[in-house]
């Protein structure tokens, strides 16, 4: 079917692609396949490495694992609160920064700064502010509001991480929204004005619908990012997921099983695989829900 010339062209193309393909196979495809392989085995890597095929045992074990349930519950709670909040906040920030205020550029930079900070540094700084005698409690006290033991009280520890993450990720999505906002033709707003729309109407009936594909993208990226919450809760709890499992997330649990306890690498891989399916489902649901067929 293919002529010699086309074969030759394809050959050249693949030769040129080979470095990338090699890296992809070695570092992306390979590990994924190996993780799937691991998830069906009982693995002991230390000493004499052993791989014992156990079928679906690792997966059925998840159903019976109380800590896995707690981790999933914490993660879902985190996703359900953080994703909508950061999306809305990003949209509002973008809209205000696109309204033609004075000093707009300056504020764009200021708002974007948190995103540039490494999450580890950010967490350490926030832990310092969340300290019992820290800034956050002083501010709350000043306004006569109740203070909390943000780091040690199981009922508020996860909220502390939520606040921190919304603050640091919203600006990133704000930039995406800003770019999309520049694309909305002025004629739409003019037409709306002629129809007697006020600022709110314009925002709700023109801006929001026009940004729907971007919102869809932002929500999917947000879902994936929040389901993978790890570094913040790891630093926050020193790797334990405490106090009282309050900051235990699925990825943190995977880490604990993979590296903290010996011989549970297979189970950790099964958990990781299950998490991938959960994210896939959530993304699929989101797309069904928003009925957005275009673009992403």
């Amino acid at each position: 079917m293919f002529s010699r010339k086309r074969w030759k062209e394809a050959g050249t193309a693949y030769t040129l692609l080979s470095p990338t393909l090699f890296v992809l196979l070695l570092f992306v495809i390979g590990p994924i396949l190996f993780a799937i392989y691991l998830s069906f085995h009982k693995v002991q890597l230390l000493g004499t490495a052993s791989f014992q095929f156990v079928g679906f045992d690792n997966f059925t074990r998840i159903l019976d694992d109380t800590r896995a349930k707690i981790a999933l519950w914490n993660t879902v709670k985190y996703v359900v609160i953080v994703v909508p909040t950061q999306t809305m906040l990003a949209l509002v920030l973008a809209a205000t920064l696109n309204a033609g205020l004075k000093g707009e550029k300056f504020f764009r930079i200021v708002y974007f700064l948190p995103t540039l900070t490494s999450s580890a540094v950010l967490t350490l700084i926030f832990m310092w502010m969340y300290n019992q005698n820290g800034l956050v409690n002083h501010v709350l006290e000043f306004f006569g509001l109740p203070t909390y033991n943000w780091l040690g009280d199981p009922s508020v520890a996860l909220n502390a991480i939520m606040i921190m993450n919304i603050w640091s990720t919203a600006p990133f999505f704000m930039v995406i929204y800003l770019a999309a906002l520049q694309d909305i033709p002025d004629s739409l707003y003019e037409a709306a004005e002629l129809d007697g729309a006020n600022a709110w109407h314009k925002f709700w009936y023109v801006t929001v619908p026009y940004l729907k594909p971007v919102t869809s993208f932002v929500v999917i990226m947000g879902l994936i990012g929040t389901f993978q919450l790890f570094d913040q809760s790891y630093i926050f709890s020193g790797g334990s997921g405490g106090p009282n499992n309050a900051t235990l997330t699925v990825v943190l649990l995977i880490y604990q099983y993979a590296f903290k306890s010996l011989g549970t690498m297979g189970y950790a891989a099964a958990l990781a695989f299950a998490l991938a399916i959960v994210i896939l489902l959530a993304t699929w649901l989101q797309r069904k829900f928003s009925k957005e067929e275009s673009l992403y």
Partner: protein
Amino acid sequence: MMNKKTWFAIGMSTMLFGSVLAGCGGEEKTAKNENKGETKEEQVEVTLAGWGGNPMEQKLLKQTLDEFEKKYPNIKVKHEVISDQYMDVIKTRLIGGEGPDVFYLDAFEAPAMIETGVLEPLDDYVTDDFDIDDFEKPLLDAFKGPDGKIYGFPKDYSTLALFYNKKMFAEAGLDVPKTWDELREAAKKLTKGTEVYGFGVAPELARLYYIAESKGGKVVTDNKASFADPKVVEALQPIVDMRLKDKSAAQPNEVGAGWGGEMFGQQKAAMVIEGNWAIPFLQETFPNTEFGTAEVPTIDGKKGTMAYTVAYVMNKDSQKKEAAWKLISFLTGKEGMKIWTSKGFALPTRKSIASELGYDKDELRAALVAGAPYATVWQNGTNLPIIMNNFNNQFVSAFLGEQPLDEALKKAQDIANKEIEAK
């Protein structure tokens, strides 16, 4: 956040590349030494891995290693400091076949590591000279495998003692408590609202183990959790009551401190139960906090405390076992241990060294040394990490008053045992 995989790939390749470079460097050095022709024997380089300590400790170790190299000129020690996530790094390196020849191992992690068979049994290397009976027995036993072989020699240890603030005690006109009942009463008197707590508690199994077992209950039975035993609950209840009923105890993060020593140093707790490590910390960071130490108060007339110990162990896959043993035997031998423990950052595990250095008469360290004979070594089977994790999680919630202690411990025990059974 977005490109974790890419970063991971870059990280991995850098590491691989780095190790290639490191490999080259090592060979070069040995080659140079050979050229100089310093010794007739073949030059060997032994890798020693451990976690970092404070600057003084690092200096002491350096001094000890220098002595070793002087004594064995053909052996060069390459000291590697793993500053964070020590066990993760060691395990990964052992799996990859890149493990160090000699490394630190905490007694807490020892049973699981011995079980995997990555450690070299050391019995065959031991000579009479080494004087194995000189070691404190419970500390040495911590590194014995189920086969009765010794897999490591303890380099030092620390016990827990009661640290009390001298000024606060003088102001309140109190004597140093000898029993837990006295401690509880003293804590009430020393508490000043939420400014100063009488007693700073670390709500962790590692610190509470001996208290938990003080009424005859067992925390671990047959390598499974058994701390929901009413006797264990009864033993731990006073700690919870001190916080919830007396309001005379708190954990460090409730006053904005990172750990007990800091809480005590900031004068937010009049008493804490800490180890050897707190002494230099307090002297350096909080020179204005005058403190004394005493043996941990007795429970029902019985003495109790914890002992934490770390050993030097040998990698089974090491290519330089002879040299590695020489290093271990020097470091844990009389000569090396004397240098290493000479400043009192850690206590010597050899009885002869302990009496030679006179720590049993030291004002601050006597209480810690006195604890050694009756201390519970922080170790119990291969499943202790799982048991500890679940205990800590639920105990904190009981300590904060979210649920009654017996329910919390029952829940923690069930989860821990389920996890153990699934293994």
